[in-house]
């Protein structure tokens, strides 16, 4: 390709699309290089369901108010202070103007819904989910005359001093070609699909992790930039994992593999032993830690055991549970030692005490005298049939990324790289040092995608 574009955007998810659309609206000539083939376009953004949005008054579809301080406080809770306050507040404050912008560009939201009421104040849910959002943006991009290339794997971002000169791109498996542009936006997501990288960071146990999102986010561009001395941020040894159904596909299982049964179960490891308080807090507040908990167990696997009393208390899972009439039989079917599991359940049951049970709130119905207590919803497993689910860590998010300024510009020790911006998960470590706040990934992508697009367009104007 001999053409010189104004702006080349690397990646085809939410952040990339927001950047490309914003830039193209100023009249810039933009090309989107999406590594995935068309049916899989949109990275992890295609798996998302909502974004978290500040609002000072009711703003359809959000109810009530969600002010900057509360939002920031929620973020501080999950990141335990590991955040860049300036960038975080910028993301939070800007999220408010994102919602109408998204609507203007074709994104549609759900009215408040059955299963999501608890989040209807803080999070706006996409009608049709993330793929519908991605589709809307691709249509907008096409209407704006943006050139979109699928199966365009960016292999190398060529840095010459404080400038990027061109990209080396492999299109549909052909030998690499150069794509030249005057400015570049990197929005190629995290590196969670590169299992070797995860294994280097986490240790060999990471090979047993499942990747909840796209197999195309292999961090090739991130690594290339880090190798070329770009400033980095975020803990390279960490990733965000949740506990999902162990039968999920290795990649791209998405939302339906999640399991919401933990608060109403007891969870044992490969050896039939419990290892954490299953009822510590409500599930939306705890689901994020269970990936890590399971990852720390032998073989990176856990087993949730439930009885007939509780089976209808949570969202259905995509794979049916294993069922048996007795606990030892269930253990055997799950491949566990029946005697060990039976002993654990026996011990747990005798530690339960009577009291009111409230599935939707902290009911304080706790065990007594166990080394690892269950502090809420502790009811004995005594009503057959019994059900079991295998749990495995499912990786959602990686933290290591490019350090950016508040104009989304990529930096190096020698100063800013003058024509390079980054947006989305590739730079999210700047804000999310650890933990995860539901809906914040899309907020970061939308806010910084738009900033990157605007800045890049101003650079080439």
């Amino acid at each position: 390709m001999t053409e010189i574009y104004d702006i080349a955007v690397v990646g085809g998810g939410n952040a990339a699309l927001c950047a490309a659309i914003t830039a193209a609206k100023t009249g810039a000539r933009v090309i989107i290089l999406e590594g995935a083939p068309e049916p899989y376009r949109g990275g992890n953004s295609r798996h998302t369901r909502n974004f978290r949005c500040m609002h000072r008054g009711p703003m359809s579809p959000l109810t009530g108010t969600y002010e900057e301080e509360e939002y920031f406080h929620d973020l501080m809770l999950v990141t335990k202070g590991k955040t860049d306050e300036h960038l975080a507040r910028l993301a939070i404050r800007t999220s408010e103007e994102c919602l109408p912008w998204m609507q203007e560009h074709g994104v549609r939201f759900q009215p408040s819904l059955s299963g999501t009421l608890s989040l209807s104040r803080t999070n706006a849910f996409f009608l049709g989910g993330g793929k519908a959002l991605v589709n809307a943006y691709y249509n907008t991009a096409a209407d704006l005359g943006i050139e979109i290339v699928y199966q365009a794997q960016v292999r190398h971002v060529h840095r010459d001093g404080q400038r990027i000169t061109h990209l080396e791109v492999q299109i549909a498996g052909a030998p690499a070609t150069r794509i030249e542009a005057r400015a570049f936006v990197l929005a190629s997501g995290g590196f969670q699909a590169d299992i070797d990288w995860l294994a280097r960071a986490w240790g060999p146990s990471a090979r047993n992790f499942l990747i909840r999102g796209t197999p195309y986010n292999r961090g090739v561009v991130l690594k290339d930039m880090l190798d070329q001395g770009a400033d980095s941020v975020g803990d390279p040894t960490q990733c965000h994992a949740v506990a999902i159904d162990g039968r999920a596909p290795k990649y791209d299982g998405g939302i339906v593999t999640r399991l919401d049964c933990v608060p109403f179960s007891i969870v044992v490891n490969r050896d039939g032993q419990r290892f954490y308080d299953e009822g510590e807090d409500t599930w939306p507040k705890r689901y994020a830690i269970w990936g890590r908990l399971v990852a720390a167990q032998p073989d990176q696997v856990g087993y949730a055991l439930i009885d007939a009393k509780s089976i209808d208390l949570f969202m259905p899972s995509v794979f049916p549970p294993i069922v048996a009439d007795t606990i030892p039989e269930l253990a055997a079917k799950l491949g566990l030692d029946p005697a060990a599991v039976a002993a654990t359940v026996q011990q747990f049951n005798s530690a339960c005490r009577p009291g009111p049970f409230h599935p939707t709130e902290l009911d304080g119905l706790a065990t007594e005298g166990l080394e690892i207590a269950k502090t809420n919803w502790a009811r004995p497993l005594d009503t057959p049939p019994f059900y079991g689910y295998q749990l495995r860590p499912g990786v959602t998010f990686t933290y290591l990324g490019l350090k950016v300024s508040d104009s989304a510009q990529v930096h190096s020790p020698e100063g800013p790289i003058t024509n390079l911006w980054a947006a989305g998960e590739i730079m999210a470590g700047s804000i999310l040092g650890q933990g995860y706040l539901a809906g914040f990934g899309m907020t970061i992508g939308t806010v910084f995608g738009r900033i990157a697009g605007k800045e890049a367009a101003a650079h080439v104007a």
Partner: protein
Amino acid sequence: MSLDLAPALSATEEARRQIEICNACRYCEGFCSVFPAMTRNKAFADGDLTHLANLCHNCRGCHYACQYTPPHEFALNIPAALAEVRHESWERLARPQALSKLFQERGVAMAGLLTVALALFFWLIAAFRPAGGEGFYAYMAHNLMVAIFAPAFILPLALIALSLRDYWREVGGGRVRLRHLAQAGRMAGRMRNLDGGHGDGCNFEDGDRFSHRRRIAHQLVMWGFLASFAATSSGTVLHYVFDWPAPYPIWAPPKLFGVPGGIAMVIGTGWLVALKLRADPNLGARRVWGGEMAFVLLLGAVAATGLALWLATGTAAVAPLLAVHLATVMTLFLLMPFSKMVHGFFRFTALVAEAGKQEKG
């Protein structure tokens, strides 16, 4: 090449597999009536799936929005899976059975029947041309027309009523209240299930872009058909109650309803055909594509010949046009239980059932 030894799933089993995935996802809640209805269940009996399938209006929103469509291994195609179950339910509940599958699937069969009807009416008009009579009745006596069309109309309707009764049992419909009918009427009248929930319309002729074209075209046909039906009914009333036989002047109800209704149907069916040619056939029940197309064309032909007949008043063209028109009407009536025509009855019944189920929660 791989040898796949797993037995193919039946349409209902396949829909169950897919709907269970949706029920763990629910991203599409909000597009249509299907998803809120789905979330009432954790397990899906055959009757539940029949109900969901008949609530689905094939707007395709959930397909283009789905992260699990092929090549993903979950291989979701909800519009097609539900279309299969829906068509199967119409075929299964229709009687007589043998005719049902024949006409649902094959436009050719429909064309065959039409030809037979054509021959019949040409022959009737030639052989039994009355001595007196005005307007159409100068070509075919009123009594003869009634003798042919009354049973051709009432019999199929009676068969459909039997099917709907079985349907109601299968899906576990409750007691019908007036408000359920009213709710269903509002949903159908505005074709709520093709507006996408966001009001941008459905996905059909232009991939994942939303448009109101199909919805508008469909409503032109539906309202046009109802208006034409009102024209015929008002004509019947005028004839028998007010002793005022056809032909009617332009300001009388049969013409007031009939002419705009016919025009709407011609435009609507033509538009639907054009849209259907551009839409992806894999997102519907493939095997009935021909039957559905033939049905739309037949509806269009009924309206077009009716209008032509009116325009040709007083010319030599009336006799052949009348034969063609009556033949198309006759075919449409006879095929009501076995063609796409039946969808209106089932969809409406499903909406009524759903209104009741929503109340029960």
